[in-house]
């Protein structure tokens, strides 16, 4: 079996923690925006959905 080509650089963990912070922040922001938009869509179309179900 081939040797391990990867090296071990423990300090890279600390160096890249900023990506962890940025990544989680980014994902919560995007999901937050999507969540608010969905709440808004639900609110704006609420009455119409009642009408549709009544029609049916």
């Amino acid at each position, binding site marked *: 079996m081939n040797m391990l080509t990867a090296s071990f650089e423990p300090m890279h963990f600390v160096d890249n923690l900023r990506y962890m912070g940025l990544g*989680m922040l980014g994902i919560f922001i995007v999901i937050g925006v999507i969540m608010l938009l969905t709440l808004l869509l639900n609110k704006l179309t609420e009455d119409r959905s009642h009408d549709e179900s009544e029609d049916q």
Partner: protein
Amino acid sequence: MEVLYQNLLQLDWKMIVMWAIGAILIYLAIKKDMEPTLLLPMGFGAILVNLPLSGAITQPGAEEGPLSILYGAGIANELFPLILFIGIGAMIDFGPLLSNPVLMLFGAAAQFGIFFTLCTASMFFDINDAASIAIIGAADGPTSIVVGQKLQSNYIGAIMVAAYSYMALVPIIQPPIIKLLTTKKERMIRMEYTQKPVSRITRILFPICITIIAGLIAPASVALVGFLMFGNLIRECGVLESLSETAQKTLANLVTIFLGITIASQMQADKFLRLDTLLILGLGLVAFIFDTAGGVIFAKILNIFLKKKINPMIGAAGISAFPMSGRVVHKLALKEDPTNFLLMQATGVNVSGQIASVIAGGLILNFFLH
């Protein structure tokens, strides 16, 4: 006479090990019913490409092999995973999520494993390979392929195998982590579920709006999100029943057949049998464990502030592996209390994980694709 056994002399032990790996994948697919649609073609393909001077792949000085052609035509340019996303989008019912949008937060929290693994993998690999390995935690094969290809990872074969294998192993990986992080009392928390009506307009506008938002924030991932949401729009528009059915069944099945066996073209012994591969498999497991932990711990933190407590297990369903992780949470809840049904809540979180994992892939590409 020499012609008959000449090829046999090319056989080495690494190829036989790969046959064994192929056989294990086929066994898991057939006997254990683990992601059979992918593990079976991958297992067979692993044997096919590890025959001496296999004509299935391009050999030096010979004409191009069909699997190499398929790889260039469908995976190197990310076409197969993207087309598969149309089928997946057509299969997903966002109803439980649209009915209770707050569940989306758990999908976000459960992407923690991706970013934790990014830092961990960066101790061993260069940053592009580390990011490609980390995306195994997206628990989403097509996203892993697209990110790995765009970042030109040297380990795409191992990453794809890890991504699909761990998705199949979700029912084994998640329960011990969930139990470790929760008390019996927490696992027995009941959550009321009221199906709020979701209008057809909302169902139609949702995929369009998600595509626009994701495209504005992470343009590199817009194809991923866009194809997923296009499939969902076909499903929800109500006027393309036949296309929706084709996308869900025929299209998804066709692409899956080619995807599995084409991925196997990257499982040639020389590329695959390396200690690096074992390390990548280990890091993939780390990603899944920390995804699960991220979702559960986030729910526990929310519970500190909430009067009406959430069952923290639903946080674990935020990993994208759909619908396995939703079912795992539902079964665990039933095990603790046979009258506690969390399926709808867990499914809502699970679906949000599907969106969040694609967005996480987009963010990773934003960070590292130059």
